[in-house]
């Protein structure tokens, strides 16, 4: 029995090692005194200094965060309203809208990216105005984020007792007030989940950004890709270490929040 357990533990350990090995390598080598990717030549914080003085990286980080925040806010607003509307649609049209909404989720990113590029260039060439850049990048991120918001809000809407909204009306609330005071608090966890998902997807996206950005507008993913082609500079290791730690901290907080909620739900349930 205990041998059995040991084998299981070893197996899980190996899989986790496999998943974490590349991340550990990046982190360790961000402190390597040598430029080399392979040889350890002593501890240094130089690459972090270089990182913070690199205007290119700073700009890319700024773009990533701006696109992330804006696309999240816009997509969450569109997606939440859309979910409320879709939830009230008749069965057939609802199935059609939901089916189309799932396309960006199911389709490979590369197809999403190139089809949007085709759309933008088609419009730009036909109308002869505008060019690819920050705006197209933002629109694209909103585009692939909205379905995730809808898909996280819809289940929450389905859980709501249909009478809740009517109960609010019954007690004298206007439809708008009933929505804000009763429906929104109920679906809020779904809205937050959708927003967080949207933000992470936006930060992490490479493929769609790569196709739909214009000259001179880079986010971190595009920058990393172009660097990886040219031969990677060690400050990227430093950057990835920092990003990883930030994400880890964020995830940890969310995880704690979820656990607290789960405990609370259990207490009441």
């Amino acid at each position, binding site marked *: 029995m205990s041998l059995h357990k040991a084998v299981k533990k070893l197996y899980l350990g190996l899989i986790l090692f496999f998943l974490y090995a590349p991340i550990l390598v990046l982190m360790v080598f961000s402190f390597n005194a040598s430029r080399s990717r392979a040889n350890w030549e002593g501890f240094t914080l130089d690459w972090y200094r270089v990182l913070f003085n690199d205007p290119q990286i700073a700009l890319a980080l700024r773009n990533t965060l701006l696109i992330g925040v804006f696309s999240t806010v816009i997509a969450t607003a569109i997606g939440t309203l859309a979910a409320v509307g879709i939830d009230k649609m008749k069965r057939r049209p609802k199935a059609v809208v939901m089916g189309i909404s799932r396309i960006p989720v199911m389709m490979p990113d590369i197809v999403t990216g190139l089809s949007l590029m085709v759309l933008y260039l088609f419009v730009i060439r036909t109308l002869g105005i505008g060019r690819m850049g920050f705006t197209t990048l933002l629109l694209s991120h909103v585009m692939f984020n909205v379905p995730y918001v809808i898909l996280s809000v819809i289940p929450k809407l389905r859980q709501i007792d249909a009478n809740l909204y*009517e109960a*609010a009306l019954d*007690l*004298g*609330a*206007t439809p708008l007030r*009933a929505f804000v005071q009763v429906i929104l*608090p109920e679906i809020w966890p779904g809205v937050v989940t959708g927003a967080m998902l949207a933000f992470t997807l936006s930060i992490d996206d490479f493929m769609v950004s790569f196709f739909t950005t214009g000259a001179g507008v880079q986010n971190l993913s595009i920058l990393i890709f172009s660097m990886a082609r040219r031969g990677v500079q060690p400050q990227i290791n430093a950057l990835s270490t920092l990003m990883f730690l930030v994400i880890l901290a964020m995830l940890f907080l969310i995880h704690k929040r979820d656990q607290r909620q789960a405990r609370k739900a259990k207490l009441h349930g």
Partner: protein
Amino acid sequence: MNRIIDLVDVSMTYGKQTVLNHVDLYINQNEFLTLLGPSGCGKTTTLRIIGGFEQPTTGDVLFNGTSILHTPPHKRPLNTIFQRYALFPHLDVAGNVAFGLKIKKKPREVINKKIADMLRLVNLEGYESRSTLSLSGGQQQRVAIARALANEPQVLLLDEPLGALDLQLRKEMQVELKNMQRELGITFVFVTHDQEEALTMSDTIAVMNEGRILQIGKPEDIYNEPKNAFVARFIGESNILEGIMREDFRVSFANAEFACIDKGFAQNEAVDIVVRPEDVRICAQNEGRVKGRVTQVIFKGVHYEMHVEAQGFLWKIHSTVQAPAGEEVGLDIAPDLIHVMKKENGKRNTESGIKGAEGSAS
């Protein structure tokens, strides 16, 4: 008496499906009116039309004589207790009760006093800051009542409010609700499919089926004088037989002729005969108009239920005196306990049911 709500020729169709079929109904001030019927009969739709959550396809809804057809639900002076209560899960008990008052921008002191009053009324003092999720079904029910009554509605609409409670609690709440209605002096419109609940609580019962009101009247009248076989079958237990109206005051069924108190049928018109199980008298075989054999005896506490087979029809009979199984017995029925009804099929019957409703309520 003052009419507070009038449904005037209300019909409701969803696509091809007719949910309500020319319903006329008035509700008096301070009345406890129950809409009773099987699921899908249109009772909840009727309630939702009064509440303003559904728009009828045709017809009008009057409140104190003025149409409220185009008044949205949040402006109607009535409140609803929903099925499964629809308490706001993100608000505590006090928050739920105060919801309507806050919307009306009542001053803080007034709201606090009202919360205290209402929670006292429903026996939930001290529950103000409890989460609604932590309450039992019965307590949630009480919060829902407090929340609705806090708005001092003139009419309270209740949509199967006791359906989710267990039997014991349901009986208690029936009495409590009835008392509350009497004390507060407001009109209750109650929807249920439970005939016993309807008989216990109501001043007036409207029996519905397939989008029509079949009969409306006092509980006693509906029980004693069902208008047709459906009502008879739905309310209480009954023996329903095919019969022929020979002439006024004379009807034949079960291969026998009976005196009755009904008249006005065509000669030899086919009719439905309803006899309540407690109205059949068991006697010696040679004394009864119908002869049969007891097949089963079940002790029901207050009475015995006996099944008597007579010429292919299985009678259900309630009596405090038991005739043992296997015994040959005679059956007899007094003239005023035989209910003769027009055949259920065809529209004439149900229409007369609605028209006759006012008469039977008086």
